[in-house]
């Protein structure tokens, strides 16, 4: 019979494992990518602008951002912090103002026949606008949309929008449509 093999000393195993552990701790990143999700419109196949549906002026919230990062909302100079309230007022139109969007009756599951705004947000940037401002505008619009949806969800179910199930979310989305159209780029300020 062969000689007994001496037992292997495993006490340094922990040290080796620690070394590897520390290497992985240092060399890896755990950051999760976060961001604002957008869907780009496809390029229209036939370039005939006559096909575009005409939208009444009262139904459009035109946001222009110039190269000095100033906002012009429907012809009125506005600070970016006021944009959220302005957008909410535009979509809701609580007093049925003649200058704010029309509403039409739609039948929506869970809600029944309700008045839905025909409002449309149109965003136009200059080439010289800073990316930071652009993101802030997008963020404010998204926040306005979320607050409106939360409001409706709260009234109906007493829950926030993101806690609803898929069907309910789809219904609320129909109730508070938030269409943001980004105009084709144009060069207003001259500089690139």
């Amino acid at each position: 019979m062969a000689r007994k093999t001496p037992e292997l000393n495993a006490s340094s195993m922990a040290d080796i494992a620690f070394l590897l552990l520390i290497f992985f701790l240092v060399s890896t990143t755990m950051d999760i990518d976060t961001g604002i999700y957008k869907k780009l419109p496809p390029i229209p196949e036939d370039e005939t602008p006559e096909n575009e549906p005409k939208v009444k002026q009262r139904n459009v919230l035109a946001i222009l951002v110039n190269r000095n990062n100033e906002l012009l909302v429907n012809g009125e100079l506005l600070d970016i912090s006021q944009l959220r309230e302005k957008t909410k007022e535009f979509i809701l139109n609580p007093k049925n103002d003649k200058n704010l969007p029309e509403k039409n009756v739609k039948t929506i599951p869970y809600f029944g026949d309700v008045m839905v705004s025909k409002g449309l947000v149109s965003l136009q940037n200059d080439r010289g606008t800073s990316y930071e401002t652009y993101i802030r505008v997008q963020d404010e619009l998204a926040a306005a949309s979320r607050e409106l949806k939360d409001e409706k969800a709260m009234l109906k179910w007493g829950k926030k929008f993101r806690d609803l199930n898929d069907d309910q979310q789809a219904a609320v989305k129909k109730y508070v449509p938030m269409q943001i159209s980004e105009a084709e780029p144009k060069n207003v300020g001259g500089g690139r």
Partner: protein
Amino acid sequence: MSKFRKEGGKETPAISTASLPDIVFMLLFFFMVSTTMREVDLNVSVLVPEAKEIVKLEKKDLVSNIYVGVPMRKFQKTFGTEPKIQLNDQFATVDDIQSFIASEREARKEELRNKLTTSLKVDQYTKMGVIIDIKQELRKASALKLNYSTRQAAE
């Protein structure tokens, strides 16, 4: 009483450290699985803007990144200080984006190709001109899912 007293029971036995490697290995495997290596070396400095209404980007393998920012100092002699586009490991121009998207699609399985999201990692001081051009190119390449990478802003 003294019947039950053990002999020399006062001394505490040495704690066995034999299971320590197992614990450490467990930690090691956790970190190996849960983390991802940095895939590209950044040639441009990117500090993405802050936003509040953000969503998490799921499925990292279905994301292709486009970086835009001012070149790092060591590249500034050759590439200047204007914001540049970086695709994979090298500098690129707007015209390269369509072929970049095509090659990214090529690298994925066929059934996943239309689920590809493009993540724009753009420095916050960049002007919109570059981004407008990129967006037009993405539309031409029909890569319509877009994510503007942002940081979580403090409430």
